[in-house]
């Protein structure tokens, strides 16, 4: 069975790029525009992995991640932050909040593939 990614980003363009790369790599995808929508999606179906933007309306990425990790089975998805907020303080905060990987935008298929391999998802 194909693994499922939840792509959480308020940019339709970024979601489209990520969706294309992940489909090419053989994954199924679901999408959410903000943290709140993403939490609802996780209640419905816990994904295998989450590609997560930082700055989003309604609920940002860090707030979503902290909520996710308290949900039943919420520790199971691999969470990849994917953001332009790429200074060391953001990276540290993401890791301390339970992120597994951190992708700095802009990114390409090679970066995403190599990060997937690091997490045993490739």
């Amino acid at each position, binding site marked *: 069975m194909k693994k499922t990614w939840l792509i959480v980003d308020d940019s339709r363009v970024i979601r489209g790029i990520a969706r294309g790369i992940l489909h090419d790599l053989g994954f199924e995808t679901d999408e959410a525009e903000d943290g709140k929508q993403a939490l609802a999606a996780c209640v419905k179906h816990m994904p295998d992995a989450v590609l997560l933007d930082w700055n989003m309306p309604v609920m940002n990425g860090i707030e979503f991640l902290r909520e996710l990790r308290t949900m039943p089975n919420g520790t199971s998805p691999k969470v990849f932050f994917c953001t332009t907020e*790429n*200074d060391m303080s953001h*990276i540290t905060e993401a*890791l301390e909040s339970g992120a597994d*990987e951190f*992708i*700095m935008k802009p990114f390409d298929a090679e*970066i995403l593939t*190599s990060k997937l391999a*690091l997490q045993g998802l490739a």
Partner: protein
Amino acid sequence: MKDEVFTFLARLLREQSGLALPRDKEYLLESRLAPVARRHGHVDIDAMYLAIRNGQNRAIERDIVEAMTTNESFFFRDAATFETFRKAVLPTLLGARAHTKTLRVWFAACSSGQEPYSVAMIFEEERARLGGWTVDMVATDISNEMIQRSRDGLYSHFEAQRGLPIQMLAKYFDKEDQGWRVKGFLRERIKFRPFNLLDSHVSLGAFDIIFCRNVLIYFDLATKREILDRMSRQMARDGVLFLGGAETVIGVSDKFLPHPGHAGIFVPAQPVALDRAVGQ
């Protein structure tokens, strides 16, 4: 590209670097040498050839060799190799060297430095087991430009993300305006120096571990054999040689044997060394 230009460049590369360039790799010459030609004020490769065919422009020749021998590299390339290094090779060698507490590692074609820095990060992660040890890391490349890049330890946004776990980036790199730079203490642990694999290896001394991954594929059989023979003379009897996952010594050199179960890992061709090198 005219035959005479290709023949001249192929001979130049073979003589100065050992690089074997078959005709079907002409596109590589075109793509990598066009920028070199422009940098030296020539409209194209043919024009550059006219300026160097009498062997009177060493600077252009050096740039041609550098451009053709530079390989793409990224951190922890072929992750399984580094796992094997950390979990099998390193513990065995630490046991075997417990009396001298010294390890010497050679990165024979370090390109822009990602491979030696990957291993340096592993040594740092294992520092609890390395108290009182001297780990001597020597990284060489034929390209002066690559050696300088390696010493600088500065990687672009894209390079810093390829293969490098974010936890490692956070621990061992500083962010700068131009990208991510390896922390000074890690850069200082590696001696980077230009070196041509066709030259005598004696001056480098003896090594316990040699990384020479995805390099020999560019050489013809006789040159591969010569390089492996020279490496075998610089390697401890229970040392370990890392080649690329798709590379082998079989049919090339009888100085090394493949280690069963570990693609791309080889040990000196002596039974004692095989047993002691990578314990099962």
